[in-house]
């Protein structure tokens, strides 16, 4: 099972352009409307209010971001809603030259997992902004930049991005 030629017929771009094989196209056209649920529904409502809210589990003492109505470790209901800060630190980051569909972008999209202050290692995937890419580092303190209240609609995008904390403007981190 090493030297023999294995079965399978590779097609090249030329084969496709010259119509050597027949293909059939079917554009998927589906729409979904997701219910946001009890926990994330409230979370999104609070984003609209310009606040980040988690759920706490009194048994394992965690404050969960994203919030859930159950604790997956203790396997019991979580106990209370708890507001956390709209600041945090960069757990990890990346500069994406690709859009979601693998097409290229000119300016890299700055992506990070943000550990939200006041939560128990609660992270959110989000963008970084108002920062030079080379300045980004793990552990960097950041703060949410919110859309104006009238533009917020109860979406993760109500936070435009997270920006580095400016101690002159924001006070000590």
């Amino acid at each position, binding site marked *: 099972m090493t030297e023999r030629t294995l079965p399978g017929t590779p097609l090249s771009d030329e084969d496709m352009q010259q119509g050597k094989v027949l293909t059939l196209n079917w554009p998927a056209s589906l729409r979904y409307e997701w219910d946001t649920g009890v926990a994330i529904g409230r979370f999104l409502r609070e984003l609209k209010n310009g606040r980040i809210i988690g759920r706490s589990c009194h048994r394992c003492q965690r404050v969960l971001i994203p919030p859930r109505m159950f604790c997956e470790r203790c396997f019991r209901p979580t106990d209370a809603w708890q507001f956390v800060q709209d600041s945090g630190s960069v757990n990890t*980051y990346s500069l994406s030259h690709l859009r979601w569909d693998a097409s290229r972008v000119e300016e890299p999209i700055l992506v990070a997992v943000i550990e939200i202050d006041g939560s128990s290692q609660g992270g959110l995937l989000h963008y970084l902004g108002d920062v030079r890419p080379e300045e980004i580092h793990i552990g960097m303190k950041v703060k949410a930049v919110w859309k104006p209240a009238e533009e917020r609609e109860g979406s993760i995008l109500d936070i435009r991005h997270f920006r580095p904390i400016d101690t002159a403007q924001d006070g000590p981190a």
Partner: protein
Amino acid sequence: MRKVAVVGAGLTRFMRRAQETGPELAWLAASQALESCGLGLKDVDSVAIGTAPDAFDGVHMKGEYLAPGAGGWGRPVTRPYAGGGTGVLVPIHAWFNVASGLFDVCLVVAEEKMSTCHPHPQGAFVTIFDNILERPLEPNLIWIFALEMQRYMDTYGITKEEIALVSVKNKRNGLDHPSTHVAEEITVKDVMESEVMVSPVNRLDVSPVSDGAAAIVLVSEDVARRISDNPVWIDGIGWNLDTAYWTNRDLAYPSYVERAARMAYKMAGITEPRKQINVVEPYDPFSYKELHHLEGLLLCDKGQAAKITADGVTQRNGDMPVSPSGGLLGVGNPIAAAGLMKVAEIFWQLRGEAGRRQVPGQPKVGLAQAWGDLMQVGTVVVMRVD
């Protein structure tokens, strides 16, 4: 429970785009696997099929769709699923079929055809992200790899150049694999100068999208002794799922892979994996993942996989050959089929049938591992020859 052996294997070429349909690819691999051990469809008691997200094909019920080509007609057929971990979860599932005593012969078939989704299968991958909190950010699958790689590099002080050595090794190893469509001689410089996709991931750090299929045959001890002179025993299986809240996890270390490995080691009686395992096929969809997984598999200390790679330990002629097949980076990555290809490679390596890919020293014990879902599942098999 009964002992279970692998007695046959088959593969198609891995291709950027195959003329064959999914069921046709499944047939090419499945029929070859049966032929390799002198069995026919009449001998098959059950069938386990592995294939990753339906969205690639735009075909619902992919297990049922593939079944006619996979030997599934009129038989107990199941399709276990764990995203990218599927290729090694399917033989684990097949192991239950045989070890339980329910069946004597289980045909295991994995197929993937990623070329169908246009303009790019990344458009289908977006659906794995949390639909409410993450998809509005329009994430790309490579984001999570880049984020994990950055955290891994930062935690242990590992450089991109050190990680690039994995691509160099695996793409070279792949030159000896008859299924490959991406093998080449490259240098660390080539990797570093290839297109930056999602920093710190460059193009040559990434396995390709591929079409292809793989199959193996699992049998009970009685059947194995009757039809095979050199069965390869599945001594241990393990799998483990971490939380889907991936942004809450420690991305520097795959603890779920460790839990899967410990489960398999316990079952196989492996107490010192670094000494007892002779050849390894860890999942390598991205260059750093091979390193990440060697650490999770307890085959080196945390943060030390780059060092043993630089020292040549993981070369085919090294003390612990890793991805002698060429892996996903060097052969191709038709997701579920790529994982099962790794199991097939251990089968051939332990039988001394890997030809130009054969590692020296007559390895007795090997390990194959896959990984996937939302960076959260590890699937492990430990195999042995007498």
